[in-house]
């Protein structure tokens, strides 16, 4: 049982490049989330999804896009990377919307130079 799998674990991007952070879960969870973690700032919600075909913005969505074509996958797209997007990104999932907490992936450390 893999849980929530994120790839890649580390990535360095140049300013203006684009990339997709992959997230896959094998628990048949309807709810999926993307957070970013900056030092001293805790985790901030970027986007979330309550099921296939449904996505919505979180607290810090600017510069990002998501899609949810299947229950399992919830990729996060960065267009025109900027230094402000240097962060650790976490994908998470939940079967019931989070009243029992989320299952997190192991994170992606992204550096934009």
């Amino acid at each position, binding site marked *: 049982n893999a849980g929530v799998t994120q790839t890649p674990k580390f990535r360095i991007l140049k300013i203006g490049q684009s990339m997709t952070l992959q997230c896959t879960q094998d628990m048949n969870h309807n709810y999926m989330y993307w957070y970013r973690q900056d030092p001293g700032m*805790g*985790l*901030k919600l970027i986007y979330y999804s309550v099921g296939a075909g449904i996505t919505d913005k979180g607290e810090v969505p600017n510069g990002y896009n998501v899609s949810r074509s299947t229950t399992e996958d919830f990729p996060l797209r960065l267009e025109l990377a900027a230094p402000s997007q240097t962060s650790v990104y*976490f994908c998470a999932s939940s079967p019931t919307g*989070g*009243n029992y*907490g989320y299952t*997190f992936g192991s994170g992606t450390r992204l550096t934009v130079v």
Partner: protein
Amino acid sequence: AQTVTQSQPEMSVQEAETVTLSCTYDTSESDYYLFWYKQPPSRQMILVIRQEAYKQQNATENRFSVNFQKAAKSFSLKISDSQLGDAAMYFCAYRGGDNTDKLIFGTGTRLQVFP
């Protein structure tokens, strides 16, 4: 909007001793959930303990327990018999009572454990 505050950026404890991490939150809801997550150097987010606001009894998981004071909007984590493996970042999180609510995290407390 709900907020979660962790006022202790860093804490330290000696092995086998007890340490308490503080968390306060602001909400107008009566039904909600509170969590403590542990993030070791591996970066993995691990759920430590969960509390339902309508339950007066404080949650306990082995050496981890909480002091939930609903009126004071306080949710502290007590770690007893601290071990070297407890060294990590600890995040307090709040989730409202509606299924559309998301986890809101505090800024974290870094716990160091000394032998």
